C-alpha cells in the first residue's frame, strides 16, 4: 500500500471528516429517515447516497504572494468546496460538489469581445500564462449572510483588459457563464434567466483587487467553485462573481445581470458589501464566518476600503 507523506497530498485528496463520518453512519438513521424524507421532498436517494469527494485539480506552482492578501485564517478546503452556490448544477449547497464532478473544462475557450480594439479568443492554457499567477487570500461575503476566507489563485483582471484595449465607448464589462444543459442539470430546472451574466463598471473591472481566478488552495479550481476560470470581486457580494466563464464583453450600456433580472428590488447592479443596507428580507449587518460559532460584524466594502473612491458622490442606498 502506498502511504503518502502529508506534503505529497493535494488538498483535494483529503476526505473531509464530515464526509467519511456520513458514509460510515448514514445507515443508522437512513431507514427511518427515508420514509419520512419522502414526505418532505428531499428524496430518499439524497439521504442514502454518500456525498463523494471532488477529484480536484492539479497543483499550481510558483505562486507569487500578494500584498492584497488578508492575514486572516482561511476557511477549510472542505467548507470552501462543499458549500457552494452554483445554481447551474444545483440549488442546494452540497449539490454542486457532486453534480459538477464530471463537468468538462478542457478544451475551454474564452471569447473577449465587444468594444475593444483587439478582440481575442483564448484557450484556457494560454490565458493562464498572460501574467504570473498570484495567491490572493480574500474575504468572501455571500449576500445570504455567510462568509469565508479563500486563498484564490489568479491575476488582476486588468491584465486581460489592457491586452484587448477597450475603445472609448467601453463603459461596462459583461461576464457570461457557460450554458451547457447537458452537463449542467440545474439549467433544466429553470430558476434564473440563463446563461448567468454579471457585470461591472469598467473602473471596477480595472481595479487591481478584481481577480481573474484559476485556482484555490494552490490548486486548479474544483469544478464546483467555477472551473476553469471565474472572477472574484472581494468587496461585492459573492453572486457578482461569474463562474465557468466563457465570454467577456465590453459594452457602452450597463449590462443586465442575472440576479437583478430575477429580483430587482433585492439584488442591485452594484451589490457592494454594505452593512448599512439590508437585504429586504434579512439584515446585512452581521455575517457567519463558516467554522465560527458567533457572528461577525460585516464591514463596509467587506473591509476593502481602498475601493471607496470608486463610489464617491454616489448614494449607495439607491445604488445598492
Amino acid at each position, binding site marked *: 500500500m502506498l502511504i503518502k507523506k502529508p506534503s505529497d497530498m493535494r488538498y483535494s485528496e483529503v476526505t473531509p*471528516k464530515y464526509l467519511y*463520518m456520513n458514509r460510515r*453512519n448514514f445507515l443508522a438513521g437512513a431507514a427511518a429517515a427515508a420514509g419520512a424524507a419522502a414526505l418532505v*421532498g428531499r428524496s430518499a436517494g439524497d439521504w442514502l447516497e454518500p456525498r463523494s469527494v471532488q477529484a480536484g485539480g492539479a497543483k499550481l506552482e510558483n505562486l507569487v504572494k500578494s500584498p492584497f492578501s488578508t492575514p486572516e485564517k482561511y476557511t477549510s478546503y472542505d467548507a470552501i468546496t462543499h458549500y457552494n452556490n452554483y*445554481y447551474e448544477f444545483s440549488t442546494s*449547497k452540497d449539490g454542486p460538489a457532486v453534480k459538477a464532478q464530471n463537468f468538462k473544462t478542457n478544451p475551454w475557450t474564452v471569447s473577449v469581445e465587444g468594444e475593444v480594439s483587439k478582440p481575442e479568443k483564448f484557450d484556457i492554457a494560454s490565458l493562464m500564462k498572460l501574467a504570473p499567477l498570484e495567491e490572493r487570500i480574500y474575504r468572501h461575503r455571500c449576500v445570504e449572510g455567510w462568509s469565508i476566507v479563500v486563498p484564490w489563485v489568479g491575476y488582476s483582471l486588468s491584465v486581460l483588459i489592457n491586452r484587448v484595449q477597450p475603445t472609448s465607448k467601453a463603459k461596462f464589462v459583461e461576464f457570461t457563464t457557460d450554458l451547457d444543459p447537458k452537463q449542467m442539470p440545474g439549467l433544466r430546472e429553470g430558476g434564473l434567466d440563463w446563461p448567468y451574466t454579471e457585470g461591472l463598471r469598467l473602473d471596477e473591472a480595472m481595479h487591481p483587487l478584481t481577480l481573474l481566478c484559476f485556482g484555490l488552495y494552490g490548486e486548479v479550481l474544483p469544478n464546483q467553485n467555477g472551473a476553469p476560470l471565474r472572477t472574484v470581486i472581494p468587496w461585492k457580494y459573492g453572486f457578482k462573481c461569474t463562474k465557468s466563464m466563457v465570454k467577456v464583453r465590453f459594452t457602452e450600456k450597463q449590462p443586465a445581470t442575472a440576479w437583478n433580472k430575477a429580483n430587482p428590488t433585492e439584488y442591485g447592479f452594484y451589490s457592494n458589501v454594505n452593512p448599512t443596507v439590508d437585504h429586504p*428580507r434579512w*439584515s446585512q449587518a452581521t455575517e457567519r464566518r463558516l467554522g465560527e460559532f458567533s*457572528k461577525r460584524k460585516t464591514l463596509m466594502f467587506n473591509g476593502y476600503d481602498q475601493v471607496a473612491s470608486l463610489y464617491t458622490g454616489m448614494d449607495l442606498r439607491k445604488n445598492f
Partner: protein
Amino acid sequence: MDLARHIKWIKPPVFLLCLVPAARLAWEGFHDGLGPNPIETITHSTGTWTLTFICVTLTVTPLRKLLHQNVLVRFRRMFGLFAFFYGSLHLMTYVWLDKFFNFQDMIKDVYKRPFITAGFTAYVLMVPLAVTSTSGMIRRLGGRRWRNLHRLIYVTAIAGVVHYYWLVKIDETVPLRFAAVVAILLGYRVVDYALQKKSGTSSRGGPGGGSARGPARGPARGVSSGSDGSTTKETPVPA
C-alpha cells in the same frame, strides 16, 4: 385489525421514530457531520420537521375517517406535541444561534421581516395548543371550546408554509410541496364540512361513531368514553 387493543405496544416505537430526526441532528452535531454551516443545517432541519409534523398531525383526522379507524386519534396529541417540540428547537436556533439573545434585534425582525413575522405567528399559535393538550385542560375547557381553540393549527400550518415560501431565494420546490400537502389536508376539511351540512346529519349514534362526525353538533364531551376505559388517553375527536 383491532388497533385499539394493541395501542400501548404501538405508541412507544412511534414515539421513538418521531425522535429520530432530533437524535440524528444531535449525533451528527457531536461527530462533525452537519456540514460546513452546522447552524444553518440545524435551522433548516428543525424547520422542515416542524412543518412535517404539522402535516402529519393534520393527516390523522382524514385518515381516521377514511379508514374508519377512530383509534388513530390517539396519536394526534403526540404528533402535535412533536410539531411543537421541533418548532421550539427551530425557534431556539434563531433566538440563540442566530440572534444570540439580542431581543431588540428580534423584535425589529418580527416587525420588519415578513417571513419572520409569519414564522413567529405560526409558533406563537402553537403555544396555547401545547398548553391545553393535557386531558385535564380538555376537561376544563369542554370539548367544543377545546376543539375550536385547536383549529388554530390550521392557521399555524398556513403561516408555516408562508414562512418557508417567503424565505427561499429562488428555488420554491420544497415550500410548494408543503403548500400542496397543507392545501389537500385543509381542503379535505372544507369538503367534509360542506358534505355534512348538506346531508344534515351529524350523529349516527354510538360511542366512537357519533362524536366522530362534524364539528357542529354531537355531544361535546371533554373526555370521550374510550372502549378500554382508560382515563388519560382521550381527546375530543373531530377537527
